[in-house]
C-alpha cells in the first residue's frame, strides 16, 4: 500500500526541519526542543544521542505524531517522502502509523497491554490495517513472532506480556512495529532495559530487519557503543538543540563540539587501562535554563564571552560534519581525546 508518491527522487525519507516544541503556552511556556534538523534516508540508521532531558524521545514522538497533549510544535516542518506531516488530517496521520512509520518503545512492559495476549496484540495490527479475519491475523502474528526469533511462537502467542522475559517482550514490540513493513522505523532506546547479552541479540535482529527491508531507522540511544556498532550517522542533542552531527567514527575519534568530545571521553572504555575519567562539570542542562548564548557554555572549558551572548549556529565544520560551536575549528585542531577537559 503506497500512500505517497515521492515529490522528487532526491527527497529524503524523512526530513525534520527546524523543529521546535514547547510545553504549555503564555508566560509558563517551557521550550523543549529548539530548531532541530536532520534527514533520514531509506536504508540508513541515524542515531540520535544525548543525556536525559536532551529531547531525544520528544523528537521521536513528534515524528510519530503522538506527543502528549499540552506539548505543541511551535516551529518547523516534518516531511515524510516530501509530504508535510504537520498539515495532514488526524485520520491520514493515523493511517501512516503502522504501514509507513512505526516505533519500538523503550519500555516494553508498559507499552504492551497487560490484559491481552501478545499474539492478540500483534494480530490486531493486521485486523485494523489489513482487514484480515481473526484466524488469518493470528496466523500472520505467529509467523511474525517466529521471524523475530521467539522460540515456540505458536504457544507463546497465547502468553500475556508478564509471562515473557524482557528480551522476549522487546521482540514482541519489534514484531508489532515491523508487521506492516514500514519504511521508517523509530527505535527509542530499544535495548536500554535489557542485559548485555540480550541487548546484543536485539540490536542484531533490528539491524538485520532494517537492512533486509531497506528501512530508514532512527535509533534513539545514549550508548556510544551501540552507536559505534550500528549507526551510519549520529546526531547529538544537548538541551533540546543539535550540537553536532556526523559519522560515529568522526565523532568518537575527533568530535568538533566540546560536549560531544567530552561525552565520548567520559565513557569508561574496555580497550585501555583503567585511568581517571575526564569529567564534564555540572549536570545536563534543559532548554528551559538556556540563555541567549550556547546552552553548553556554563559547563564548557573553552567558554568565551561570545558563548554567553551569541548562540552558535549549526554549520558545516568539516566535510560531512556539522557542529554548533563558535570554536569548532579549535576543537578539531586539538587532536587528543580529552585534552581540553582536564579533570
Amino acid at each position, binding site marked *: 500500500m503506497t500512500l505517497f508518491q515521492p515529490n522528487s527522487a532526491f527527497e529524503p525519507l524523512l526530513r525534520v526541519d527546524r523543529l521546535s516544541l514547547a510545553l504549555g503556552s503564555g508566560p509558563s511556556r517551557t521550550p523543549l526542543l529548539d530548531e532541530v534538523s536532520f534527514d533520514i534516508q531509506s536504508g540508513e540508521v541515524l542515531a540520535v544521542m544525548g543525556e536525559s532531558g536532551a529531547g531525544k524521545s520528544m523528537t521521536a514522538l513528534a515524528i510519530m505524531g503522538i506527543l502528549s497533549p499540552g506539548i505543541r510544535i511551535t516551529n518547523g516542518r516534518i516531511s515524510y517522502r516530501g509530504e508535510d506531516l504537520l498539515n495532514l488530517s488526524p485520520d491520514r496521520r493515523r493511517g501512516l502509523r503502522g504501514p509507513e512509520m512505526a516505533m519500538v518503545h523503550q519500555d516494553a512492559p508498559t507499552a504492551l497491554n497487560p490484559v491481552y495476549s501478545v499474539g492478540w496484540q500483534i494480530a490486531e495490527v493486521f485486523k485494523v490495517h489489513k482487514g484480515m479475519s481473526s484466524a488469518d491475523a493470528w496466523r500472520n502474528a505467529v509467523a511474525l513472532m517466529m521471524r523475530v526469533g521467539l522460540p515456540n511462537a505458536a504457544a507463546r502467542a497465547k502468553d500475556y506480556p508478564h509471562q515473557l522475559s*524482557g528480551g522476549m517482550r522487546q521482540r514482541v514490540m519489534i514484531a508489532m512495529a515491523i508487521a506492516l513493513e514500514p519504511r521508517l522505523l523509530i527505535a527509542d532506546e530499544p535495548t536500554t532495559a535489557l542485559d548485555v*547479552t540480550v541487548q546484543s541479540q536485539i540490536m542484531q535482529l533490528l539491524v538485520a530487519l532494517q537492512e533486509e527491508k531497506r528501512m530508514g531507522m532512527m535509533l534513539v540511544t545514549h550508548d*556510544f557503543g551501540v552507536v559505534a556498532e550500528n549507526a551510519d550517522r549520529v546526531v547529538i542533542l544537548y538541551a533540546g538543540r543539535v550540537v553536532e552531527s556526523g559519522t560515529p567514527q568522526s565523532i568518537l575519534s575527533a568530535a568538533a563540539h566540546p560536549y560531544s568530545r567530552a561525552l565520548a571521553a567520559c565513557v*569508561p572504555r*574496555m580497550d585501555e587501562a583503567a585511568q*581517571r*575519567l575526564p569529567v564534564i562539570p555540572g*549536570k*545536563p542542562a534543559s532548554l528551559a535554563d538556556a540563555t541567549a548564548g550556547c546552552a553548553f557554555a556554563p559547563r564548557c572549558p573553552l567558554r568565551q564571552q561570545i558563548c554567553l551572548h551569541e548562540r552558535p549556529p549549526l554549520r558545516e565544520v568539516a566535510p560531512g560534519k556539522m557542529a554548533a560551536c563558535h570554536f569548532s575549528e579549535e576543537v578539531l585542531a586539538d587532536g587528543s581525546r580529552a585534552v581540553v577537559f582536564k579533570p
Partner: protein
Amino acid sequence: MEVGQSFSSPEPDRPLIEVSDLVCHFPVRAGLLRRTVGSIQAVDKISFSVQRGEGLGVVGESGCGKSTMVNALMGLVRPTSGSFRYAGREVFDMSRAETRRWRRDVQMVFQNPFASLDPRMTVRQIVEEPLQVSGLRLAAAERRAQVLRMLEKVGLDARQADRYPHQLSGGQRQRVGIARSLILGPKVLFLDEPVSALDVSVQAQVLNLLDDLRRELGLTFVFIGHDLSVVRYVSERIAVMYLGRIVEIGPREAVFERPQHPYTRALLSAVPRLERTKAGAGERITLAGDPPNPADPPSGCRFRTRCWKASEICSRIDPVLSVGSDPGAHSVACHHPETQ
C-alpha cells in the same frame, strides 16, 4: 569492645572478607494453603574472599543473584546457610550489639538514589542519621561538623545541607548516598550498581569520586554492576556470576583479557565497543535465549543450556570453582575452560 574501637584481624595476611558456601533460597508457595512447592535458588554456594584495600567487582546479568548476595551479606536478607567472616569473626553469629558495631565498619551504597533516600528528610538529616543511631554518643555540634566535612568530601557544599532529595539532581543524590555510607568511617563499602541510574557525564564524576575516596580512606570495595566497563574501572579483581553461582573469578586483566569460562567470553563480546564499527564488528558470540528459571536450574552446569561447548559431562557433573591455596588466583567453574 570499646566504643570507637573496631574489628582488627589477629592475622594481618588474612582476607578482610571471607564468604564461604553462601546460600539464599526463597520458598515458592502455591495453592490455597500456600504450601512450599519449590525454591528459587537465588544464591547457591558462593565462596570468595576480599583482601584489605582491594576492590572486587561482581558482574552478571539481572537475576543472577548479585544483589541478593550483597543483601544477604549486609543482613538485609536472611541467608539460608553459609558463613561470612569479617576480620576473622563470623558475622552471621554476631549478637545484636556486635552487629551494631560491625555496621560501623561495613556500609552499603544503593543503586537508585531516587528511591533510597527518605524524601521527608533533609540532606543534613540523611547524612547525620547513622551517627545518631550507631551508639557513638557524639555531641550535636560535633555531629553537625562531621556532616559538613563529609558533604565537602563528596563534593557537595553546605548550602545543599538543608535541601530535600527532590531538590537535587541524580548525581548529587548519589553523592548524598555515598556521604551517608561513609559518615561512620567504614572500612568496607558494598556498592550495588551505584552509577547505573546516572547519565554518562554524571556517572564519570561519581566514578572518579569513588576512586578518590577509596584511595584517600583506604577502603575495601565490593562493587556490583552489570556494566562491565564500569566494573572494570573500579575493581582489581572480578567475579562473574551466572544463575546464583560464581562461574569465574580472578584478577581484572586475567578475566577481561583471558576469560576462561564460555559465559564470560560471551558476556565480554556482547558489550558494545566504541572501537568497533558497523562494517567490522569483529568476533562476536551471541548467546541464544534467556537465562533459565532459577527455581528450576538445569542439572550439572547451570550454563550448559546456552553453552556451545556443552557435552555430556556438563549435564551430569556440576563443575566446581577450583579455589586453590591462593585466594587471588584466576579460577573457573567449567569442564571445558578456554586455555590460551
